[in-house]
């Protein structure tokens, strides 16, 4: 395993810029997710690291070696593809063995029948067979070694694809949306397995996904990409709590963060939400506040802003309540309510929302995050301030 550095990589397809000066360093043994909406360049970046695509400018460094001139196979990386990309005509054992055969046997030794009798090939073949068995055992697919990929379920194919990556003991694992073809239940299960595999192998993992839950649950660090730029790199907590940009805030977190437009009161720097002082002091350039659903309290009696419950979802462990604000009818606020609060029975009734000023995020007109804090420790809570 090794460190992987992406240095100022740019890539253009025709006139469209897919990557613009992207830089990122992934430490040895780290699990980094590249996440972003489709078309943000994350897959292209992964393909550039692998060597399947060539960058226009910039360098890829693996370990202490610049690999820009090396073919994909010479970079000693392993890749797991979204469609698994198993060889349909080979059985599971041969699929897993393929990278090792290509590495250790020469062209003649790989010939069918005759190859087996050439000097050196018996030892090499034994070693390969042993490694294939070990990998199969580790992934719990030993009983499938003789089958063809067509006879396997999606989850089993996924494991074979991981096995093929595993055997070559690569400098880094590249995974390109490996779970997106699986059904929801299996996806959760494979998520755990891949995270455990990473812990066990202590290898460098670069994981591309558009699913923020996958990125949040598995990664040491997340690199959020938008429009060919890496706009934020940080731990899941940092990206979630301290997004640098409104696009990051909106992309990470489910349900999505609430964004409300605010006016700034000149005297105190107080953000004013729909005519009511919000209890948050912001930088004067702020134009909107972002508040996560779990920082919002919804109450039937009192709160910062009044509205109508438009919809409520009961997830069992919690409920999500959507409130359309009376003063800002184009805004629907999503709030997290506790278990058994019964909002699903109160759709259409009046409700009031308020929020925890300490957890608010402020953004300027360009979408960049600007400073904000809860106003005056003496006036705790939005309502007291709003009345005063």
């Amino acid at each position, binding site marked *: 395993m090794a460190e992987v550095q992406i240095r100022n990589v740019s890539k253009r397809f025709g006139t469209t810029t897919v990557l613009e000066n992207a830089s990122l360093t992934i430490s040895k043994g780290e699990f980094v997710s590249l996440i972003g909406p489709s078309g943000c360049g994350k897959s292209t970046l992964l*393909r550039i690291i692998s060597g*399947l695509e060539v960058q226009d400018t910039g360098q890829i460094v693996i370990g202490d070696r610049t690999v820009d001139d090396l073919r994909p*196979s010479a970079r000693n990386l392993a*890749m797991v593809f979204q469609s*698994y*990309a198993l*060889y*349909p*005509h080979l059985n599971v054992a041969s699929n897993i063995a393929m990278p090792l055969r290509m590495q250790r046997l020469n062209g003649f030794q790989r010939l069918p029948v005759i190859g087996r009798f050439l000097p050196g090939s018996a030892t090499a073949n034994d070693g390969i067979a042993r490694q294939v068995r070990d990998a199969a055992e580790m992934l719990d697919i030993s009983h499938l070694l003789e089958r063809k*990929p067509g006879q396997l379920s999606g989850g089993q194919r996924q494991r074979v694809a991981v096995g093929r990556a595993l055997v070559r003991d690569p400098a880094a694992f590249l995974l390109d949306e490996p779970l997106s073809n699986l059904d929801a239940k299996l996806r959760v299960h494979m998520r755990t397995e891949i995270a455990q595999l990473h812990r066990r192998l202590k290898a460098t993992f670069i994981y591309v996904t558009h699913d923020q839950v996958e990125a949040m649950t598995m990664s040491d660090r997340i690199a959020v990409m938008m429009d060919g730029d890496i706009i934020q790199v940080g731990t899941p907590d940092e990206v979630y709590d301290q997004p640098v940009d409104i696009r990051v805030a909106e992309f990470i977190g489910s349900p999505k963060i609430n964004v409300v437009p605010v006016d700034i009161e000149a005297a105190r720097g107080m953000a004013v939400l729909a005519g009511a002082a919000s209890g948050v002091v912001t930088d004067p350039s702020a134009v909107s506040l972002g508040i996560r659903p779990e920082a919002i309290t919804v109450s039937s009696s009192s709160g910062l802003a009044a509205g109508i419950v438009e919809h409520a979802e009961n997830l069992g462990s919690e409920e999500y309540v959507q409130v359309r604000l009376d003063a800002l009818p184009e805004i629907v606020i999503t709030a997290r309510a506790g278990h058994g609060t019964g909002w699903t029975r109160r759709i259409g009734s009046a409700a009031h929302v308020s929020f925890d000023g300490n957890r608010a995020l402020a953004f300027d007109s360009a979408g960049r995050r600007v400073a904000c804090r809860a106003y005056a420790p003496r006036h705790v809570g939005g309502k007291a301030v709003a009345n005063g």
Partner: protein
Amino acid sequence: MRPVSANSSSGDLFKHAVLAVGSIFILLPFAVMIATSFKSPADIASGALRLFPTEYHGFANYAEALSATPLLRYMANGVIVTASIFALQLLVALPCAYALAKLKWRGRDTVFGLILFCLLIPPHAVAIPVYVLFYWLGILDSYTSLILPWTISVFGIFLMRQFFKTVPDDLIDAARMDGISEFGIVWRVMLPTALPAVTAFGIFSIIAHWNDYFWPLIVLSSEDYYTPPLGVATFRTAEVGYVFGPLMAAATIIIAPLVLTFLLAQRRFIEGITFTGMK
């Protein structure tokens, strides 16, 4: 439910009736050929429409067919020529199709357009120039002259290219990551994946060149290189005159390998179709 099933069964009946009439139309000449190959000259000359011979003359006809002309020699020529043509066609078509379907290069679409254009050129139109060229090269009247003009099959390139287009890019990328070279990808990944298409192309190619009468007739002068259709033709003009019994026996013999090949390929074809593992 009842009227539906009644409807569909009468619909089935109609479909089968149409197919049966069609297949009779196509198979009848073959039946007549095989039947005639078992009949005596008197039987054939009587002109009566009978499927079964009144007098069994099969052994004599087949013996005559095999002894009057070196029929087996002609068939061996046919095997050498059609097998070489098909092998060389694959050797050319698969890498071409791979380059056209999966590699990115400047002018690819133009080249593909030109290839499609070549589909429009009938082989007969270029027969004379090719003949003259072979004359200058001094390779007329040889296996080479039978094989060489057909090694580049535009149809094969087109067919394989269309099939390769359906192979997921991920599979090729996975092969590249595993260290397989581009040519290795053609032979070790694309070829096994494309086996159904290769089989289909093989059926077309082998039938066309086994049955080809036109080109061998032009380039060959010595009987040593005669292919089966030419061989049968010599049969008709042999000194015995028109002897339909042995002639039909010879025709049956030269068609048999095609029928066998097709039946074998058909099984492979079905296997090939169930050969999915990507999705």
